[in-house]
Every structure is written in structure tokens, then in C-alpha cells.
């Protein structure tokens, strides 16, 4: 028991650090993309098409991770892709959290018809295949960063709503809420000042998860060619392109795929790590 808990804690710590470092590095690369990327991500050089990464024979050391079929530098495109991925993650993640948590809090705390309406809405939303819904929304909204963010919020608010509603219901049943009611505090005041702070850790854990999901949704939409302009350096777009030339130039697919994998993994592990670290303190 003691021993088991000891090793568990160590593992949680390592995973928080590792994922945190990866996300930090990617965020910095995204922030300073124009400064750190060795080439312009859009410049085509048809004479330098499909150059392999540096350790493979026939490589040009100027293109560390090789070039795609149009001769664009893979590394630079990954770095600039991080910009788009992280912008989407941040904005869509937070917006989804706001909308979903707000509805969840209202449903779980007010109960009654508010709860009925919101819960029914969640049910209806859960009856759609999310990817299909996302594609449909992009078809409606048109391509572009804003459309992607709106689509993610519209699809994924239920994830927050369901969890936060349950949590708000739990908290509402606790004694501190009853005593606040007895003290005559206004209803909404209790919701914001008493219940919300106790639901916040759950929301934060979900938020990091949602950021990873946002990155994936962006990649899926780029993959189906519905994201931003097909020229812009997005990870999903690179993957889609790499998929078509996979037998001739595996690196065009493999590197963005690897980066996407590690980023999504890090977002979820970071959230889990945070939860492990703060849970015992809060509960």
C-alpha cells in the first residue's frame, strides 16, 4: 500500500514534468515561429522536392527533416503548424469550457425546467457522430480558423456540460450550500461564490483534455480538407498530404504525425498529472 502509493506518486510527477516540458517547448516554438524556423513554410522549391531527413542518404542538411513534394521545408511547416494548433487549442478549449461549464452549472444547480431543457439538448447532441457534425458545421460556416473554433465549441460543449452538471449537483447537496441558503444569500451568488470554486478543479482537468481534442479536431478537418486554406501549414494538412505520398516520402507524414501524437498525449497526461497532484489537497 505504502510502497505502491510511493511509486505512483513518482510516476505522476514524472508525467507532469515530461508533458509540461513538451507543451512548453511547443508553445515557445509556436510563439517565436518566424524567428526559429529555418525556412519560410510557404516557399516552394520544386528542385528540392521530397528531400529526405538529414540522416538519410541524398539529404540536404539545410532541410533537417526533409521537404515535401513541393519542396517546402517540413521542419518549418511543423513549427508554423504549432502556431495554428496552439491557437485553436487555447481559444477553442477555453471557449468550450466556458459555454459547457456555464450550462452545466445552471442545469446542475437550478434543476427544474432549466435542467430538463439542457439535459435534453445534451441527449440530442450525443446522438450525432461528432466528426460528421464538425464537417457539416464547417460546410455551413466556411473554412478558416474562426469556423474551426466555433465548430469545436458547438460540438464539444456537452463534454463539459455533462461532467460539470453532475459535479454541481453533488456540491449543491452539501451542507455548506444549505447553510448559505439558510443565511439568505442570493441564489446566483451561491452558485458563483460557493459552488463554482469547488467545481473549478474538474473544469481545469477537462480543459487540458479539451485542448488536446481541439488539436485533433483541427487536424481531422484539415485532413478532410475543410480547415484553413490548403496552403497554410497545419499539422492535419501536412498529414493529409503525406498520406498521398506515403510510399515515396514517408517523412512528410511521419514527422507531423509524431509531433501531433506527442502533443495530444502531453495535453491529456498534463491534465491527469495536475489532477493527481491537486486532488488530495482539494478533497
Amino acid at each position, binding site marked *: 500500500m505504502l510502497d*505502491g502509493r510511493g*511509486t505512483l506518486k513518482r*510516476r505522476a510527477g514524472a*508525467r507532469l514534468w515530461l508533458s509540461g516540458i513538451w507543451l512548453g517547448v511547443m508553445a515557445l516554438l509556436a510563439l517565436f515561429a518566424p524567428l526559429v524556423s529555418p525556412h519560410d513554410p510557404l516557399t516552394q522549391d520544386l528542385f528540392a522536392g521530397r528531400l529526405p531527413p538529414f540522416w538519410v542518404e541524398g539529404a540536404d542538411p539545410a532541410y533537417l527533416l526533409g521537404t515535401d513534394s513541393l519542396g517546402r521545408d517540413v521542419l518549418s511547416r511543423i513549427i508554423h503548424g504549432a502556431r495554428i494548433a496552439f491557437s485553436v487549442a487555447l481559444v477553442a478549449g477555453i471557449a468550450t469550457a466556458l459555454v459547457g461549464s456555464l450550462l452545466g452549472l445552471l442545469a446542475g444547480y437550478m434543476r427544474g425546467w432549466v435542467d430538463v431543457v439542457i439535459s*435534453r*439538448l445534451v*441527449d*440530442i447532441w*450525443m*446522438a*450525432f*457522430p*461528432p*466528426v*460528421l457534425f464538425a*464537417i*457539416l*458545421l464547417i*460546410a*455551413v460556416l*466556411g473554412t478558416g480558423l474562426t469556423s474551426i473554433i466555433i465548430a469545436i465549441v458547438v460540438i464539444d460543449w456537452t463534454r463539459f456540460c455533462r461532467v460539470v452538471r453532475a459535479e454541481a449537483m453533488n456540491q449543491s447537496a452539501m451542507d455548506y450550500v444549505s447553510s448559505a441558503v439558510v443565511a439568505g444569500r442570493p441564489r446566483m451568488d451561491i452558485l458563483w461564490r460557493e459552488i463554482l470554486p469547488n467545481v473549478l478543479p474538474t473544469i481545469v482537468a477537462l480543459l487540458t483534455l479539451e485542448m*488536446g*481534442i481541439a488539436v*485533433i479536431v483541427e*487536424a*481531422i478537418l484539415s*485532413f*478532410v480538407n475543410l480547415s484553413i486554406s490548403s496552403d497554410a501549414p497545419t499539422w492535419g494538412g501536412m*498529414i493529409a498530404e503525406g*498520406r498521398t505520398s*506515403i*510510399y515515396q516520402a*514517408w517523412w512528410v*507524414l*511521419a514527422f507531423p*504525425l509524431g509531433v*501531433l*501524437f506527442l502533443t*495530444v*498525449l502531453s*495535453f*491529456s*497526461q498534463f491534465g*491527469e498529472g495536475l489532477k493527481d497532484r491537486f486532488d488530495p489537497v482539494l478533497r
Partner: protein
Amino acid sequence: MKLLRAILLRLATMSVTLIGAAVVVFFVIRIVPGNPIAMMLPPGASEDDIARLTAHYGLDKSIFEQFVIWLGGVFQGDFGTSISLRQPVMPLVLGRLPATMELAIFALVIAVVIGGAMALTGVRYRATRTETAIDVANGVGLSIPDFLWALILIVLFGVLMPVFHISGRISPSLDLPFVTQFYVFESIARLRFDLWWDLLKHMFMPALALAIPLAAIISQLLKQSLKETMHLDYVTLSRTKGYGENHVIVSEALPNAVLPTLTLIGVQFTFLIGGTVIIERLFSYEGLGNMAIDAVINRDLPLIQGIVIVFALLFTVINLIVDMTYALLNPRLRHA
């Protein structure tokens, strides 16, 4: 009596959900920019032609009128006519649904086998390196969605070690004797195991991609509830009766630990079916999801509606089945 009321209530909420889904889809796709009729006609078609076809598909009426007409048709099993494929939607959708169901069921089987085996192994060798390894695998499996697993599988087993097919449902060179769209089941029924094997080889990669996250979820939850069950007195008691650890886990702990996992599998199975949309696209698998993406790209409104409604119906029915199975399997509920 109580049971009957519960069932009726369930059916009522189910229909509310379905009608709600129909309304949302119907109105969302009417805002889609781009005229589907113009898209299907060759460039240079006259204004007149476009107007005539628009009227033919009823798209000249007001949205509410269109909705009433469409809903009336739906209740009679008529989902309208696909604009891009120029065929009735219903047979199109039903023709593709079996392919998707076979893929989803195969994925579910893989997930249950892998997840179950990992959970049992983890409990059998609890508090050892084996369990730690399984925990790590679960963590990774859970964090990475099916889309990424699919791409990783394509790189690993399609390109680096090309052992599995990564495109299509069945080898195009084969002669198909099938009369239904349930190829896998029908190939077994016809004892055509050559076809069956070809189908499985095509399905394995997409099914595995769909299965990995679910396998991780099953493994994690089942292992946790097994471990909780392993501490219970009746499990300990059965150890004193002379049974080996494997028997104790499988026949004493498992039947009681499996129930929460089962409910979870139900919900997760609907997520898995949702995942087939993009996975079918990745593997060029001719299922409903692949057709759905084409329908969106072609602005084929009746087809999109039909597909979404079928998915929604599928999801709600699966949830209903899960709830009923849960009630049947739990002896405490059964006798209450």
C-alpha cells in the same frame, strides 16, 4: 407494471431526442451555402434548368414547408432522393449501413478481447512491473484518439511492414456472390472462408484503430473494479477453498466486476460508431461514414439528413439495449 412504465418513458424520451436531432440537422444544413442543384448540373446549365430541378427536389418551398414534407416522409420510411446520386436515400443508406456495422462490431470484439485480456493480466500480476506496463499502455491508449491510431497503423503496417490492407473493404479482383450487404456474415454462411479472410484482412487495421482507445478504457475500468472485487470477503473465502488464483479471478471476481464495464461499453460503443466516419475515410472503406463525408462535400441535403437520422437512431437503440441488458444481468435488479 412499473417496468412497463419505465419502458414507455424511455421510448418517449428517445423519440424526443430523435425528433430534436432531426430538427437540428434539418435546419443546420439549410444554412449551408452553395446550391446543390448548381453543383450537380454541368457548368453552363441554364437558369431554367436549375429552377426546374430545384422545384423537383422541393427546394423552392419555404424551410418550414420542406421540413413538414420531409418529416412526413420520414414517418413513412421515405427519406427523399439523393441529389448527387439520384437515388432514393433509404436504400442507399441501408446499403452502406451493414459495412459500417460489421466494422464497428469487429472493432468492439477486438476491444473487448484486448481490454479484457489486459485487465485480467493486470490483476493476475498486480503490484508487479507487468501491472505498471499495463497502466502505462492504458494511459497512452486513452489519450490518443482513433484518428491518430489509424495513421500510425497505416505507417507501421501499411508502409513499413506491409502486412495488412489499408484501403477498401474487399479485394476488387474477387468475384462477389453476396446478396446481402453483410459480407462478413454472409461469407460465413456460404462457407466462403477465402472471402471471409479477405474481408477480415481489410477490416483489421481500421477496426484496430477504432478498438485501441476503447480497449484502454475497458482495461482500465475492468481492472479497477476487479481489484476492488478481489478484496471482498467472498473472493478471499474462495481462495481458502483451494482454488488457484486464475479461477478466483475468472469465476468469482469477474462476474461481479463486469457490470460497470458493461454499461460503459454501451456508451463507448456509440462513440466508436461515431469514429467510423473519419476512419472509413482514412481507409477508403465503403461504409456509411465515408458516404456521409461525400454527401457533405456534395451538399447532398437529403442524403446528409438520412445518414444523420440513421446514426441517431442507432445510438439511441444501442443505449436502450445496454440499459435492458444491465437490468437483465444484475440479479439484484432482476428480482427486485
